[in-house]
């Protein structure tokens, strides 16, 4: 991380150690991963996220396009989180099976990103390939309740699209996953 940059500049970025961050008091210090977490304030993240949404709002004309853009942003985040976590957690071995990936997302990823394990992982009843990861209090929607208000003309808008993008990237299989977000 940055502390290393001070000491010496690596010739190749790939040689830079990822590091585990500094020792910090964290919200949830039970897991091994979280013990070394570096954190920023929630409001800093809220401001940043609001700018992201605002910027995209100007660029698009309708809600669907806005959600798609947010999802793309989330996708980029997800790809990197996946690499990072696989490297740290599992010694660079990635899950390739469906259930493996889903439970990886459900526990590890959620824990690192949002500080807790997702509320549940269920198999949907309607379709063969449908699974549901439920989360009662999504971080982004917690921001939603606290800091964001939706103007009347955007009733269907869902900031969860950002998180949907994070999940979308985990498809190591050929099947296309359709991520549908429902506010609890």
């Amino acid at each position, binding site marked *: *991380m*940055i*502390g290393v*940059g*001070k000491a010496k*500049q690596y010739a190749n*970025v790939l040689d830079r150690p*990822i590091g585990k*961050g500094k020792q*910090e*008091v*964290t*919200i949830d210090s039970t897991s091994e991963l979280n013990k070394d*977490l*570096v*954190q*920023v*304030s*929630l*409001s*800093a*993240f809220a*401001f*940043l*996220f*609001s*700018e*992201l949404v*605002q*910027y*995209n709002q100007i*660029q698009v004309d309708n809600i669907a396009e806005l959600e798609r*853009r947010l999802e*793309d*942003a*989330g996708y*980029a*985040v997800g790809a*990197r*989180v996946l690499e*990072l976590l696989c490297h740290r957690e599992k010694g660079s071995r990635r899950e390739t099976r469906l259930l493996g990936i889903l439970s990886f997302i459900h526990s590890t990823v959620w824990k*690192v*990103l*949002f*500080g807790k394990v997702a509320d549940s992982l269920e198999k949907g009843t309607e379709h063969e390939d449908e699974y549901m990861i439920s989360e009662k209090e999504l*971080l982004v929607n917690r921001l939603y309740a606290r800091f964001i208000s939706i103007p009347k003309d955007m009733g269907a808008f869902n900031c969860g699209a950002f998180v949907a993008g994070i999940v979308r990237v985990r498809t190591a299989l050929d099947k296309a996953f359709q991520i549908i977000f429902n506010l609890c």
Partner: protein
Amino acid sequence: MAPAAPKSGDVIFASVDRVNAELFTLTYGAIVRQLITDLEEVEEVNKQLDQMGYNIGVRLVDEFLAKSSVSRCVDFRETADVIAKVGFKMFLGVTASVTNWDAEGTTCSLILEDNPLVDFVELPDTCQGLHYCNILSGVVRGALEMVSMKTEVTWLRDMLRGDDVFELQVKLLKQVPEEYPYKDDE
């Protein structure tokens, strides 16, 4: 802690809700990526980041004043100190140091050794003119403008370009007295 700030940055940081810095870093990276794809010109991206930072700063200063209960700063020196010690700590979890005061006390440098925005980032050759952290300069500028100080904020040193720290130069242009929206004699 300086007598002006009753609560130190650490105390406030410990009391606010926090999120994983990596999520923050990656989200910022996604924003910059979107901007580069949309705007394509590095200068445009810099300007847009600064503008976004300005919008954030304007709102951030309210939260800052509410949570930190600092009293009015006597001069610009104190302002810079408060920003570096309390402000940065409260929001980003890192402290900056203040150096390089000029003779009149209107220009100083904020040095950041640790910057959560740039973890895992490397600038490609096509984006060498990009000030990746330009949002920070906008935030400082916006926040100070809301407390009646017009400033100019520029990057002197940038770790992504090979320097050893991030150095942000804050120059006080002028202090704008508070304008009341109504006339006193009406």
